[in-house]
């Protein structure tokens, strides 16, 4: 089955992983700006990373027939550093017109500090000013509930924000309602330990339905799985969900969200999944 992984940190992965993605039906990945696992020393270092995301990585993906898109941001893990954040934000606009840049992301909160909120707010305003799609990271573990609530509250302060142009990622069972009820898209991250398993992601689909929900692997330099989305597909089949419903979640939904950027070139399915019944 064709699928799209809207959250994959491919600069951290080997070309073997692109091969796995291609072999399992992945037609496109989108790569949000990430933290390197250690703090970068200056804006120049981040700008080199942006060049890697916009110049090198699309070519590497294309060798395997996978389209590669990206998002620009200072990642929440470094957003408490206000000096670095201001420097990086000033550099972002020149990348926004490049053909594979879909929007601003991943922005959001990590430990939910005042500085992180200030940087996040400035990035939201940048997205509004340049009319960009927004991809939001929500914090990990005990910080997720509070961080998601504050992230959503900040978005709701801006009348210019169109909720359907925002995906709030790394949603879990205790945060998905506050995301969906305000009209945002929700991303479920299939991650071995700190986020959500394929089994739990299918439970979420069964409880909430497939509307405005996407799944991604969020593979990066840590323990993670570049072919997590096909494992979600397998779990859906294990529970005998129809192929139309599976296609809606792993292909039609991401196409619908990402195609709000005219740069996203994956065509919708010729036969889009009819609204599927669950249960």
């Amino acid at each position, binding site marked *: 089955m064709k699928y799209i992984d809207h959250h994959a940190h491919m600069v951290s992965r080997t070309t073997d992983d692109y091969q796995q993605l291609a072999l399992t039906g992945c037609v496109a990945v989108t790569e949000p700006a990430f933290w390197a696992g250690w703090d970068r020393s200056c804006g120049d270092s981040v700008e080199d990373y942006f060049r890697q995301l916009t110049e090198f990585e699309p070519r590497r993906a294309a060798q395997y027939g996978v389209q590669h898109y990206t998002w620009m941001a200072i990642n929440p*893990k470094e957003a*408490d550093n206000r000096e670095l954040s201001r420097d990086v934000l000033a550099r972002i606009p020149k990348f926004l017109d490049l053909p594979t840049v879909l929007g601003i992301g991943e922005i959001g909160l*990590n*430990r*939910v*500090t*005042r*500085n*992180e*909120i200030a940087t996040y707010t400035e990035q939201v305003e940048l997205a509004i000013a340049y009319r960009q799609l927004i991809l939001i990271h929500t*914090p*990990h*573990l*005990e*910080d*997720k*509930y*509070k961080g998601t*609530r*504050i992230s959503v509250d900040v978005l709701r302060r801006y009348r210019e924000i169109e909720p359907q142009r925002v995906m709030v990622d790394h949603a*879990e*069972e*205790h945060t998905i*309602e506050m995301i*969906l*009820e*305000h*009209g945002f898209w929700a991303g479920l991250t299939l991650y071995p330990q700190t986020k959500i398993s394929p089994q*739990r992601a*299918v*439970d979420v689909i*069964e*409880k*909430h*339905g497939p*509307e405005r929900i996407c799944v991604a692997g969020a593979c990066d330099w840590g323990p993670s799985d570049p072919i997590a989305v096909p494992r979600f597909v397998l779990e859906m089949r*294990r*529970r*005998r*969900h129809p192929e139309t419903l599976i296609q809606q979640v792993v292909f039609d939904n991401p196409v619908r969200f990402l195609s709000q950027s005219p740069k996203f070139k994956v065509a919708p399915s010729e036969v889009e999944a009819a609204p599927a019944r*669950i*249960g």
Partner: protein
Amino acid sequence: MMTGKPRHSPLTATEIVDEYFIENRTRLLEMAAFLDRLERADPDWARHDFRMKAFAEALDALSAPGERLTRIQLLLSDPRTGPLDALDRKSALGAYDRWNQEGRS
């Protein structure tokens, strides 16, 4: 905007148990082994470590019916509403320290 009443899996209850019992039995034994391992290392540790205190409460929550997963997630979450004044560390620890007045998390 929510989609109404709770829905369910196409699988029947019997099929869910047939399909998922063994893998969840394995998870149950892994948790038991973890608790035994910790007890062998220090029989009192679980009573003092905030993560293990939260873990024990989560185990209690498992036996009460209804929305177990969400209840456990909230039990492990920072319940405060305001931001931290300053960054204390990069990473989350998995549970909020409700037993420390200062709020370690």
